[in-house]
């Protein structure tokens, strides 16, 4: 966790990319970026570049994966080989498997699966360029893509990760902050109710720091939600 001489936040509370503690990185959203899909969304967030595409509802194959009373969500989170500084070898990856699982479970909490018994909805999340917080970008983009595909949902899921760096709690960690930081708290929020459907955390947070990071995430989620709603109205954000 040592980060030597790297000064992540200056005396005035300004972070290495010019943001204040509670600021979110710049975000842009574009719909329909995978023309052959039933719904799709590209989300750029800092230098993250993420594509989510939806296929379905379609018949679930093979039959043993079918559920009589609802659709199954088949979610894949994947990092493209050129998405990071060191190339990623394609193939099985324990980290991706875990993120796919918790992302699926977050989305299952809002998609009205019972409307589509015996069917399958495929949610494909591809990290084209990774900065930090890709699981949050992927989850948010996937929920927007589901809405774009016209899949009924009780709410969007907006996800963001706050954390701690240089003993200061900050919102929406960037790459350097994630590398040298002391804690990372990604959350997935339902903007209409304030409930959570996604939560992970690692590092070290005192009870007070934890509350601070939680609040940053909640506030940021409300802001990002506005962007998503705007994009769903007009096809892109910002205009």
């Amino acid at each position, binding site marked *: 966790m040592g980060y030597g001489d790297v000064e992540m936040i200056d005396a005035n509370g300004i972070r290495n990319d010019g943001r204040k503690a509670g600021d979110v990185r710049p975000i842009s959203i574009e719909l329909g970026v995978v023309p052959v899909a039933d719904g799709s969304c590209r989300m750029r967030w800092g230098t993250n570049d993420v594509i989510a595409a939806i296929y379905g509802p379609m018949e679930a194959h093979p039959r043993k994966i079918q559920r009589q009373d609802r659709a199954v969500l088949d979610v894949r989170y994947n990092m493209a080989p050129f998405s990071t500084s060191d190339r990623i070898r394609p193939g099985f990856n324990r980290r991706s498997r875990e993120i796919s*699982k918790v992302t699926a479970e977050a989305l299952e*909490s809002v998609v009205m699966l019972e409307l589509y018994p015996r069917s399958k909805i495929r949610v494909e999340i591809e990290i084209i360029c990774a900065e930090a917080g890709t699981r949050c970008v992927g989850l948010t983009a996937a929920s927007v893509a589901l809405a774009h595909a016209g899949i009924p949902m009780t709410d969007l899921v907006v996800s963001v990760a706050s954390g701690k760096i240089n003993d200061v709690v900050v919102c929406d960690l960037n790459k350097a902050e994630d590398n040298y930081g002391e804690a990372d708290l990604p959350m997935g929020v339902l903007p209409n109710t304030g*409930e959570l459907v996604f*939560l992970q*955390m690692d590092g*070290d*947070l005192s009870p007070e720091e934890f509350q601070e990071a939680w609040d940053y995430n909640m506030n940021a989620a409300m802001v990002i939600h506005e962007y998503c709603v705007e994009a769903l109205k007009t096809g892109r954000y910002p205009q």
Partner: protein
Amino acid sequence: MSIPLVPQLLRSHLRELADNDQRLDSRAQFEGRDVDVEVGILANAEGSARVRMGDTIVLAGVKFQTMTPYPDRPNEGGLMCMAEVRPVSGRQHEAGPPSAESIELSRVVDRGIRESGCIDTSDLCIIPGEKAWQVILDLFAVSDDGNLFDAFALAGITALRNATIPQEKFELGEDRPLVVSKTPIMCSYQRVGGRFIFDANGREELGGDERIHITLGDDNHVHSLQKGLKGAFTAAEFTELMEEARKKGEELRNMVHALEGGN
């Protein structure tokens, strides 16, 4: 993937029980099963523990290997934590490559231990840049009647705290104890019948909804969180669980420490 047919009935029953503040096995909402911990039970491991919580039984074994340090951390060794849920441990566990469930289990237990900073990886260095110890913690489910997460985490930290670095076997001097400076404890809560309960057993897991796993350190700092399965929870619910985890964590941490006194 097997399709359980009973769950709807089970869920109704669990709902009724919850409405009357009851559980299948008469426990209170945040009451855990009896916990029994033994250490040093594996003759070929350098540290080991068996944990029994009701009919859930798990083993943890610690082994050491030498590794080349990572170029960016030449003075550090490593920790690897692997959980296996093999078919021996339950009818529902089929043979095959690691499932998403067992990968999550491994990684959540691993993060809880790793992020607590309880193991000083620079203490594992043998020759800077050339050779260091890799600590491998293997978690093995013997009988799964629910809540493998807490059982694995408890067996894991107990086995680590009782582990010896086998320096003689590697001709690197005398054996010495692995230094483990903290005792992170995981407490897991699952929504069953609409409310969160502690230490769900197998039937409660089958008829339950989302789970929350909280790992706290000696000073009540949070080191790892994980929400699993379908479901949404409120901030108020989470705050209550954090409070419960602090109480229960202290109790289990004291149990782990007491075992060491007895050695």
